[in-house]
């Protein structure tokens, strides 16, 4: 089992889109993929659920408090991805959940271990933007982070917030591989986008996993309840996500698989 966390310092950068498309591309490369939505917005299901009518079914929040079994909370997603949505909860239940998670820092690691997933499974975690108890949980088990940014000044300025958390929760762990970056919605036809992109490239160097070009097909695929891969197989976005995925797998391949001790 290898764990990837998709994180963002601020909202609106297309993090959930990146998570979903990485999951699809990873599954297309032949790996079993478990996508877990740790974001109370509960939006990953719109991108990944094969059957949108199951949208109001159980999720992670229900399973955590024992209202349903874990298998019951999971559903089938596109491309063979197994999806564990956050689930629909009201404000009080969410605050209770967050309290319990804050009290049990290794909850996610223990839970994942209890799933007894096949060894080659990739677990992809979608997290809410900015610091939160969910992000803490994710970073405590994550082996590879995918930080999502836009090629604009705001994304660049907020990077240190995430980097401090990564330093705190990930870097000390021996099984941690790396923090990588994906620049989303680039537009080479706009001067500012091109310039910021250039600066980010120089700043990030090999930590940059890839750049995803702005592409209408991405939002249209979401509106059509299908994947971009299926909706516009030849689009630049699909090629970009495939490239990011290949680079991500390369990073994992460069280190021996670990997992047994990650939940301590």
């Amino acid at each position, binding site marked *: 089992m290898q764990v990837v966390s998709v994180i963002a310092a601020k909202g609106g950068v297309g993090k959930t889109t990146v998570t979903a498309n990485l999951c699809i591309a990873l599954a297309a490369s032949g790996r079993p993929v478990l996508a877990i939505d740790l974001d109370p917005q509960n939006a990953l299901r719109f991108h990944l659920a094969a059957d949108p009518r199951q949208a109001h079914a159980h999720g992670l929040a229900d399973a955590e408090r024992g209202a349903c079994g874990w298998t019951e909370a999971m559903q089938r997603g596109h491309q063979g991805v197994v999806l564990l949505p956050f689930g629909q909860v009201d404000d009080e239940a969410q605050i209770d959940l967050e309290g319990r998670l804050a009290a049990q820092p290794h909850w996610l690691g223990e839970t994942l271990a209890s799933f007894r997933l096949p060894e080659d499974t990739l677990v992809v975690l979608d997290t809410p933007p900015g610091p939160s108890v969910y992000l803490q949980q994710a970073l405590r088990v994550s082996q590879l982070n995918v930080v999502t940014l836009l090629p604009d000044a705001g994304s660049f300025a907020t990077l240190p917030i995430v980097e401090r958390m990564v330093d705190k929760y990930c870097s000390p762990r021996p099984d941690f591989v790396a923090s990588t970056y994906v620049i989303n919605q*680039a537009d*080479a*036809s706009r001067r500012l986008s091109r310039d910021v992109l*250039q600066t980010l*490239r120089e700043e990030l160097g090999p930590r940059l996993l890839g*750049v995803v*070009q*702005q*592409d*209408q*097909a991405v939002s249209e695929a979401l509106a059509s309840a299908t994947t971009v891969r299926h909706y*516009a*197989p*030849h*689009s*630049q*976005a*699909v*090629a970009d996500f495939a490239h990011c995925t290949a680079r991500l797998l390369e990073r994992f391949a460069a280190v021996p698989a670990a997992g047994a001790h990650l939940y301590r």
Partner: protein
Amino acid sequence: MTSPAETHADDTLLGRHPLLRAAAWLVTGLLMVALIITPLSLQQQLTLSVAIFIAALVINRFAGRFGSLAMIFLSVVVSSRYMYWRLTETMVMDNPLDLVLGFGLLVAEVYAFVVLLLGYVQTAWPLERKPVAMPDDVDQWPTVDLFIPTYNESLSVVRATVLAAQSIDWPRDKLKIFVLDDGRREEFRVFCEAVGVTHVTRDNNRHAKAGNINAALKNTTGEFIAIFDCDHIPTRSFLQVAMGWFGKDPKLGMVQTPHYFFSADPFEKNLGTFGTVPNEGELFYGLIQDGNDLWNATFFCGSCAVLRRTICEEVGGIAVETVTEDAHTALKMHRLGYNTAYLALPQAAGLATESLSGHVGQRIRWARGMAQIFRIDNPLFGRGLKWAQRLCYVNAMLHFLYGLPRLIYLTAPLAYLFFGASVIHASASMIFAYALPHIFHANLTNSRIQGRFRYLFWNEVYEAVLAWYIFRPTLVALINPKLGSFNVTAKGGLIEKEYFDTTIAKASLFLLALNFLGVAAGLWRLSWVDSDNIATVWLNLAWTFYNLVILGACVAAANETRQLRNAHRIALQIPATLYFADGHSMRCETYDFSTGGLGLDLPTEVKTEAEAAVTVALFRGDNEFRFPAHVRFNRGKRLGLQFDPLSFDQERALVQCTTARADIWAARWGNHPRAAVHRVLGHIARISAIGFKDMFAHYYRAGLQKLRPAPRQPQPAAGAKEPT
């Protein structure tokens, strides 16, 4: 000397014992002389020839340089034996006609023999020099002035070169670009100012290109001078590839890289051989320059090269005494003990001459210039050269004297067929026994050495076309090097309709007519006159037929095919992305490009409106560049785009993504598969047949028009609506 071939110690048995080595030379030399001069009967000569030829065929089965050297040795022995026999036994003439014609043929044969031997010296061991990496510390890199001399070429030709030169990977503050405009054109000045390069003019045009460069040398200070003809577009890696050796060898005066042409030369265009048969220049840049490099005799070819300023100034700048100033400049460097180097990596590409007449004009200039150097600064004499350098230079010059010998070969059998003159005083069977081994060995060996760069017999086609035209200027230059005028090679023209260039074909047509008459005379001799000498008649007839095949190909080369597009299309498969106006994108691949547009292979068919506006993205490494364009045609999975007007930045980016790519030309060059003899001959025969057909069709039409004087309206050219 830092030539790599000379730096490693010779630790072979013969290398360690100089006496043994001398003895080996002596024994080999004596054996060789014996093999060459021993007189043999017909039977014995045949046996010896067959034995040696079988040995050569066996050796030819084994790859490697030792095999090549062994085959060269056998070829030299067999050809020397033939020449010895020719000189000592076959020149016993009893009447003046035989003597004059026979002497003419002998001169041609001796010339061919000398050129064969010198060619072996030149190409026996190509150096295959590899580039040396520049130091990691960029501060140590020298300053370079890049000169782009131009005289009358249009701005559309020059701008890509300038923009590509600006894209060369070299520290910005250490590379200055100068457009040396001998045309003094306002349009050029404005362009240079707009893109940020220096526009240089002078108040006269003395000594043409050489004078132009020398004038600029006086006003610039860079440690090195890179020179590009205005239509040779450099790749971004040019300087990093070419400059490394200068750091390693302080006496290195010049580094030359190949001239690669992305458009078809007139032979390739008119004979339909572009990309399938090695062109005329490939032998020189693929093999001969690389062979010269072993002997430290690479010469400067005027473009795609870098000169060290100090050494260039020491020899007085670019030579102005001859019209091939480039080769002469290198010769002067060698005379002062400096080195030159050749890197067989195409780092630039340009337009080939469009028409056969333009091509002929260019070759006349080269031939004249080489003959001039031969006269005024003969490399055989004078100070400073090593013997091998002298031989390489002499061969380069002798090569351009092929005019007369080639004309003699094309008419030699007629001496017998017309006049019954025996130009070789020997029986047909003796000629077979001596001459055939000589021809077979020379062809077998050269096809092994040159196979990737020149196919058998093509040499004869290239030379036969030019022979008549370079014969006179070389003769004039040999008599008086100062006579004759300079002509600039025109590039980038359009041939708007197909036509048969009767002016340039005139010489071939005349020779053709003679050879046809020769066939008639031969048939007449066969049937009535010469029943005693049937074998001799057949020998001369076969020779005449061969000449007809070669001349037919020459005639085909004069049939100018149409050249419609202004911008040349270059095949190129690189990833691209198409962005449609509605925000959708599609990953695709280019199949060709030009400065005006781009052809795309799409993964699936798309519907587009006519002239739909799109944006196309190309990549340079990780960087994406987008270019506005509109759809010109949409057929199946192929889409043709025409660029909208581009800004200088966009144009430069386009050059960077296409012609300036470091790897773009290397794979297309020197990669011809070896071709079997019968295939090559068959191909030439087919081309020749087409040549005859076109020629007869041309004269048939011309004849009809004479009979019917009312001029008909010319037909509009079919297919003229091809996308640009």
